[in-house]
């Protein structure tokens, strides 16, 4: 990790590009991840609310989903 990071920040873009060009599909995939996370955990929260007659899990699920999606996009496309 320590050795790789300066290389990536420095003159490595060209070298990296030759290995793997950035894909336009990744933009759509990131958007898809974002919506999927919000909808998936929002739906789970809604299900918990409806099943146990509670309130608040829908909103919580939406927020957790949004945070998880953003983190997933960070892990996939920023960190690596």
């Amino acid at each position, binding site marked *: 990790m320590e050795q790789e990071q300066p290389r990536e920040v420095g003159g490595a873009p060209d070298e990296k590009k030759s*290995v*793997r*060009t950035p*894909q*336009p*599909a*990744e933009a*759509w*995939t990131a958007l*898809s*991840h974002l919506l*999927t*996370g919000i909808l*998936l955990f929002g739906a789970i929260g809604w299900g918990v609310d409806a099943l146990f007659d509670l309130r608040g899990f829908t909103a919580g699920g939406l927020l*957790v*989903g949004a945070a*998880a*999606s953003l*983190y*997933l996009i960070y*892990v*996939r496309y920023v*960190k*690596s």
Partner: protein
Amino acid sequence: MTMTATAPAPGFEAPGVEDFNLPPVFGTVTKPVLELVLALIIVVVLFAVATRRMQLVPSKGQFLGESFHGIVRNSIARDMIGPEFLKFVPFLTGLFAFVLVNNLFGIIPIIQFPTFSHPSVPYALAGLVWITYTVVGVRKHGFGGYMRISTWPPDVPWWVRIILTPIEFLSNIILRPVTLSLRLFGNMFAGHLLLLVFILGGEYMLFVADDVALKVFSPFAFVMGLVFTGFEAFVQVIQAYIFVMLTASYIGTVLADDH
């Protein structure tokens, strides 16, 4: 008084989803089915003509065919897929031509119905694309490797993975073909609806409405219809390009080594 004079004329009914459910031509065969067959014939015949009697100095037809092939080969396949792009060029070229012809059906006189404005048609096409890149990915990395690339975020603790993997699985494996097809469907559906509104609206203003002012202004509706027909031509080409570009990009993504 002039306002009440419009009362006898029937009100304008805006075009809607029911305008896309055309009656069967014969049996269970509908107009979109015939269009799909026609598109297939057009694509096959055009490429057959373009590639017949290939010469070093190309004829006009051969030149057009080669240019089309060149666009897909150089600006789609090679950029998106990388070193192994050549074997996907025929598939992508055929896909591009097929989608393009079907889209352009939307503005070709007499036919005038974009096949992909019925969601089931792009679903089928996206299903084909899904099978293609899944098979390509499984062949390259094995089933486990393909699933790891698609649903296994690197360098995260296991309890985070419990949250992230379902999102990636749903997004990458299940929803990707849906978004691919809905993008094409939505554009074709909305474009056709837009043209219907202007043309049918203009027709209503000119022939059905009692108000003289509406008759006078009806040419504007037709002019707008023509303007949007040109705009639709642009959208139809762009959407065919995007569909094929994303297909190539998905293939490129599953072919890429771990990143």
